[in-house]
Structure formats: C-alpha cells, structure tokens
C-alpha cells in the first residue's frame, strides 16, 4: 500500500481539495472517461449549442415584449 499523507489532521477545505486532487491523480479508467466527458462537453456546448442551437426567439427578438408578440402572432395566425 502506498504511503498516504494523513489529511484528516488538516482543515475541511484542505481535505476536500485533497479528495479531488489525489482522486484525479490516481485515476486509471477515469482518465479515458474524463477525456470523453471533455470532448463531449466541447462538442455539445461549443459546436452544437453555439453553431446549431441558438435560442430561436432570442435570435428573432430583443425584448420579452417582442417575444410575447412574436409567439402571439404565431399562435393566432397559424
């Protein structure tokens, strides 16, 4: 078993920090998973969201009032 520093004697925030820090450092399969999560979030939020999924109403209207008018027009005239 590897030597573990005793973080229990440290303060709460230091223990929280070491929980994540040591956890990430000693990961094996987790590294691949984090890579997949990273790529996925990049594709979702940067490519898909920014390029293909703008908020439709916000792209047509500037104010809440305009959005209301737009939707009213859509619902009354369809």
């Amino acid at each position, binding site marked *: 078993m590897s030597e*573990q520093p005793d*973080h229990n004697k440290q303060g709460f925030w230091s*223990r929280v920090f*070491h*929980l*994540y820090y*040591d*956890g*990430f450092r000693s990961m094996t*399969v*987790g590294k*691949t*998973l*984090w890579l*997949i*999560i990273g790529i*996925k*979030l990049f*594709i*979702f939020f940067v490519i*898909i*969201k920014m390029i*293909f*999924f*703008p*908020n*439709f*109403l916000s792209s047509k209207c500037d104010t*809440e009032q305009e*959005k*209301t008018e737009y*939707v*009213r027009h*859509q*619902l*009354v005239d*369809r």
Partner: protein
Amino acid sequence: MEELINVVDWSRAQFALTAIYHWLFVPLTLGLGIIVAVMETIYYKTKSEKWLATTKFWMTIFGVNFAIGVATGIILEFEFGTNWSNYSWFVGDIFGAPLAVEGILAFFMESTFIAVMFFGWKKVSPKFHLAATWLTAIGASLSALWILVANAWMQYPTGCEFNPATMRNEMTSFAAVALSPMAISKFFHTVLSAWALGGVFVCGVCGWMMLKKRNYEHCQRSLKVGAWVGVIGIVLTMITGDTSAVTVAKYQPMKLAAMEGLYKGDHGQSIVAFGILNPSKQAFDEQDPYLFDISIPYGLSFLATHDFNAFVPGVEDIINGVSCDNEGNEINTVSYAERMERGRQLKEMLSQYNAAINSGNTLMQDSLKSVINADFKNFGYAYLDKPEEAIPNIPLTFYTFHFMVTVGGYLMLFLLLALLFAYKPEILNKAKWAKWWYILAIITIPLTYLCSASGWIVAEVGRQPWTIQDLMPNKVAISDLSAGYVQVTFWIFAVVFTALLIADIGIICKQISKKSQTNLDTVND
C-alpha cells in the same frame, strides 16, 4: 404546409433520437446505483473484503455509464429552445421551475457525492462513504423526478393558468404540478423499471462471466443482490404499470385506445393478449381492426378502471364525445368537432385580446382572459384540420405497448428464476442446460433496454399530435425553421450519440473483461 409538416416530422425524429439515446444511459445509472448501494451496505455490515471487491467492480461499471451518459439530456433542452420555441415560450415557468431544481440538485448531489464515492474510499469514514453512495443513487432518482414531472405536465397540464398578456402558462400550484397523478405514476413506473433493468444487467454480466468460468463466487454474491433488486423492481413495475394504465385511461383515453387498437369501445371490454392489426383499418370504416387476436374477456375494463364492467371508449367513441364517468358508465360529452369549434373561438378571442392591448382596454382584457381560461382545455383543437388528426399512430403504440407488457411478464419469470438460482446454485451446477441459461441472461439485457424504450414510445407516440395534451399540437409548437436545417442537426446527433454509445458499450465490456480476469474476491487497488 408541406414544409411545415416536414419540419415537424424531422424535429420529432430528432427529439425521439436524442431522447431514446439519452434513455439508454439513464436506467442503468438508476438501477445499478441502488444495487451498488445495497452491496456496499452489506460490506459495511459484514466488513468482508469480498463484498468490498464486488462493490468496487460494479461501481466501476456504474462510473463508466454515468460519465458517458451525463449531460446527454442537456441536448433535449437545446432542442426546446431552437426547434420548439413556441412551445418553450408557452410553457413558461412550468418547465423552468422543475428543471432549475433538477439542475441545482443534480449538480450538488452528484458532483459531491460521486466524488466521495470514487475518490473517498481511504479518505472518509466507511459510514460517510456509504452515505455518499446512497445519496448518489437517491440523487440520480431525484434528478429524474423533475424531468418526469415536466413530462407529466405535458401529458396532463394542471396547476397552471394561461396568461394571454404574456402568452405563457403560469404556475398556480407547484404541488399540483409536482404531485399530479400522472407525475407520480410516471416517476415510480420509470424508476422502478430501471431497478428491473439494473437487476437484469447484473444477471447478464454474471451470466457472461460464468459462461467463461470466471469469478464464480463474485458472481454468486452479485446475483443475490442483482436478482433481489430486479425482482422487487419488476413486481413494482407491474403494479405501477397498472397505475399508469388507470391514469392514462382517465387523462389520455385516446392513448389507451391506441395502445389497444380499440376503435369502438364497450362495457366489459376485453384486452388483446396477442394480436395482429389490420394495416388498412381506418377510423369509421367497417373493417375489423385485427387480422388475428387472442383476447382476455373484461381485461381492458379492469386494467383501465379496476372495474370488470366499466365502459372503455374506443377511438371513434372519443372523437364522437362518448366517454366513461367515474362509475364506469358510458356518457356523452363534447365531440372533437365541437372542441375544434370552441378552440377556434378561443383563438379568435386571443386575437381580440391583442386588439384590446393595443387600444389599452384593460376591462376587455380582463373579461377575455377569464373567458379564455374557463375553456382553455379546448384551445389546441383550434389547430386541427379534422377530428381524425387527433388519432395517434395506432400500430406503433399498439405493438410497443404489447411488447412492453409481454417482455414485462417474461422478466418476472426470468428474475424469479435468477433469484432461485442465486440461492440454490446447485440447480445450475448440475444442469446440462446451464450454458443456455447464461446465454439467455446475456440476451435479456438488450431485450430489457428495448422494453424500456418501448415504454417511452407508448407514452410519447400515444399522445400525438399533442406537444401539450389538448393545448398545443406539434405543428404549433414548432419553430419557423427549414426542414433542411433540422435534418443536418439530426444527422450530427445520430453520429455523436452513436459514438458515445459505442464508447459506453466498448469501455464497459473492456472493464468487465479485464476485471473478470483478476481475482474479484480480493481488493486489488
């Protein structure tokens, strides 16, 4: 008009694709989460290293599935804002509130407790670790609760009032939204069916290991927990499936009629145990709806109302306004033609409301608002061109419903046998057919996923053409986009999600294969 239908179809296909892919990840997180928590509880009580090794094995699989599935649901929210913008505006804070609760809850519960679960073995006390594992499992179910509440509201809009000044529905009672009968039955049926799926998954993976003659003892331990959670899950799935059917019968009778391919209802209505639909059957023609059927007398009346003699309306009855009261009697209510007429009047009032705003006539606005709200349940019918437009795809709803129920019956048998073999392994050890049982266990995994996806198809296809039941059909909910635009994103999602699924299955299989070759009776790390 053709372009609009095309956009509706592509947007629906896109939503269906992303929702089904998302749902491939979720039930295993929900089911395996509970199984891992139970295993760790046994470890906590027994302090046995063997149970610790078993817990860690399944926790790794849980972690892989969670990591790859996490955030796939966010895509659905993107689609609301882009493809379904009229709908997103119209639902107002009703969708926003539950999803905001989910966001905050999921973030805090999952990011903290999952970290303790994976990183905290040597850093926190065993008790704290166990609590974190349970909270991760409970947190996952709770975050599913809110999206299911939102979905239930679309099936049965309640606890809200329409404000024509903002064109949004405003929540009048959070409790009515969160605790609606639809939300409750949906939550329990969905989550408990995920327990059954988790149980089947453990049985299938152990079946594979036993076929390969690896880690027999670990499999025996896993099977005891997996089969128990699976059996409890499937029994409760059936009970809540029954409650779901009663709820659907009450609030979405058209969906129930589609589930059964029932065109003309009756008192003491039979249920189709097995049937082949007549593909050329249309509402109001004289053809037989089934080419072949084996039916159980009085079954549908009982399933829908718990009364063997109650009247269950068929598609044609519902269109004609024939319904069933609380005592199970046949009654006449409003026909769809009449509802369309009333809907059109409401739409006209909405246009008058607009004029009243422009002229600053607040008295007129107030009186129109109360008239609109009094009859708002007919609003969506304004947009139907003919009553038959309100009939969902009957073959798809019928076959997926029957598939779900048939597989549900099979799973009950399978999981009970798995439980028996978990406690009496000697039966399998002596049996020549043991190999076939293991193979069956492996095949049951994809079968259960298909069953679960079928449940969603029943719920969602069965309520068409409504995005919000009775209030907003798809063709009104949709944004003014081009079909080509939606097609591009459909294919992007198809590629991205398929890649994620391949990664999920690939990494899970690799982990199972790798770890099963180590000794899972001791802790290796």
